[in-house]
């Protein structure tokens, strides 16, 4: 063995670097310079030390997915007395915004563009997304990260319940929750927000089609599918009759009236800012040169309905906070993630 100690040392060092990915730490720097949330990296971020995370795991291989199999996520964090700011960048060679658009056909009918994979999920006409999951009190999250809430079907069943999805998110016991900051390039970014969600222990699809995944409490706003009651046309269109956009601001929406020509495209989604806890996270994003840059801002401690169960509370800046991240490249549920938990620590 001594003969090849050099080889062994090199190999061990390489493996040690790889193994370290599961215990990576993001340190938030205290700042007095407030970064502007505009998707641009201003001077305030100079104080933040970046942490790079490789994401290369997938829950399944879709027959229609041709997105990233591996990406590097770079995270930076700043905070002041009341607010956490994060700058998130990840490699994604394509900007995907074309989420279920309506297209007028030659025969005058309207058709929503879709190409579901063999599990019924979309990877062609969708949007880019990013998720940050924060442990609130979920068993196993601090060590296993997002895997603590990930449940794969065995023979099409999870816990004796039919599950067509390759995986479902829920915690293992009542009262255990995970905060989920879900950035959506079409459904939430146009209104300058993350979709603030959470995960609980629910496995009853009748209560929630997303099983344990839920939106935080809201008092208004949000997004809805732009589909008429008979599902044959859009329900709304832009007041000025413009075409080609992939989302429609609710404030600008008027009932659909068909004076369009074949090939015209109308949005598949109507968006408006979340009101209430679901809109806790402000954001801005820019895609350029094969990379998304997203900035976010959230109160260290949130209020509102059910905040304790739905939101991670950064109330003790001497603690470390486990979290995990995932990249969704134009995919409804397929995502590229890392194993283990990352931790956020607050610097002085």
């Amino acid at each position, binding site marked *: *063995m001594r003969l090849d100690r050099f080889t062994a040392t090199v190999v*061990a060092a390489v493996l040690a670097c790889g193994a370290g990915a599961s215990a990576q730490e993001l340190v938030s720097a205290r700042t007095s310079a407030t970064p502007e949330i505009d998707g641009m990296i201003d001077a305030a971020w100079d104080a933040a030390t970046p942490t790079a995370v490789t994401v290369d795991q997938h829950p399944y291989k879709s027959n229609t997915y041709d997105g990233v199999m591996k990406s590097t996520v770079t995270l930076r964090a700043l905070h002041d007395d009341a607010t956490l700011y994060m700058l998130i960048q990840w490699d994604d060679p394509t900007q995907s915004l074309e989420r279920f658009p309506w297209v007028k056909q030659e025969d005058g009918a309207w058709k929503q563009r879709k190409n579901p994979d063999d599990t019924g999920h979309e990877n062609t006409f969708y949007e880019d997304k990013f998720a940050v999951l924060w442990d609130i009190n979920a068993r196993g999250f601090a060590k296993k990260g997002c895997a603590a809430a990930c449940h*794969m079907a065995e023979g099409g069943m999870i816990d004796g319940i039919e599950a067509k999805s390759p995986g479902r998110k829920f915690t293992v016991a009542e009262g255990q929750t995970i905060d989920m900051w879900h950035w959506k390039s079409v459904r939430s970014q146009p209104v300058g927000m993350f979709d603030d969600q959470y995960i609980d222990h629910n496995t009853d699809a009748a209560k929630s089609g997303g099983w344990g995944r839920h939106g935080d409490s809201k008092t208004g706003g949000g997004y809805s599918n732009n589909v008429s009651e008979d599902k044959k046309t859009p329900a709304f269109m832009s007041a000025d009759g413009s075409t080609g956009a992939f989302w429609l601001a609710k404030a600008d929406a008027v009932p659909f009236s068909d004076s369009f020509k074949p090939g015209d495209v109308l949005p598949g989604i109507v968006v408006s800012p979340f009101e209430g806890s679901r809109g806790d996270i402000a954001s801005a994003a820019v895609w350029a040169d094969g990379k998304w840059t997203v900035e976010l801002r959230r109160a260290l401690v949130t209020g509102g309905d059910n905040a304790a169960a739905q939101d991670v509370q950064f109330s003790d800046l001497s603690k470390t906070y486990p979290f995990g991240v995932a990249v969704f490249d134009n995919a409804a549920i397929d995502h590229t993630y890392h194993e283990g938990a990352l931790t956020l620590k607050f610097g002085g």
Partner: protein
Amino acid sequence: MRLKCLPVGGRLAVSLFSLTVLYALASSMLLIIYSTGSTAMVDLEAVKNKYARNMLTGAMWGSMYEHVTEDESIRIVERWIAAGKPRALYDAEVAAVMKEDCTNCHSRTSTMSRAMPSIPLTSYEDVVASSTQGLPDGKLLKGLHFHLFGIGTTLVALGLLLAFSGLGGFWKAVLPLAGFAGLWLDTTGWIVGRFSEASAYMIVSGGALMSSAIGAMAVLVLLDCWIRVPVIGGEDDDR
């Protein structure tokens, strides 16, 4: 007849063979580290977990540890094994541990990046089959015949080449002997691992002896093709 007397093509072939052996040796080191989940070159606990303990709990303490929610989960499985793997205790406690920490990947239908459909842990029968003491029969026999045939043949080839080197006669005898002794010690340790944790010492010492001998022979043969290897361990009769 000496290696150096071979035409360039012959020496090149012997050299490439030696380099290939060294390449294989380096990859086997990497495999040991990777499969035991330890970054230490000689980690006795990792070796025990892999070869000389219960395969299931050995993996949970070793290479799979990062996927286990808490140590108590492993102890639950250990208590079940110690109790003779009763079905009732599996249903009551072990199945929940498997579901929480193992079956996302260890199922016949897993689609995850690290899916291990060949080692399912989704039923009582699966878990019993994967909780053998030491290497399971199939893995043991597969590993034994690969190692004995493969490494045995390599040792013969290196020993013969070494016999035609300018090295002293002592090392021409000792190095092949050490290689075979290490091979036997290592592989016999795998079998003994079915009964005793002490086999880890056999595996580590056998592996070290075998690897050292193979590496030394490959390097010496390679050098002797092109330069004059210093005479140690006795004069070479043909010098």
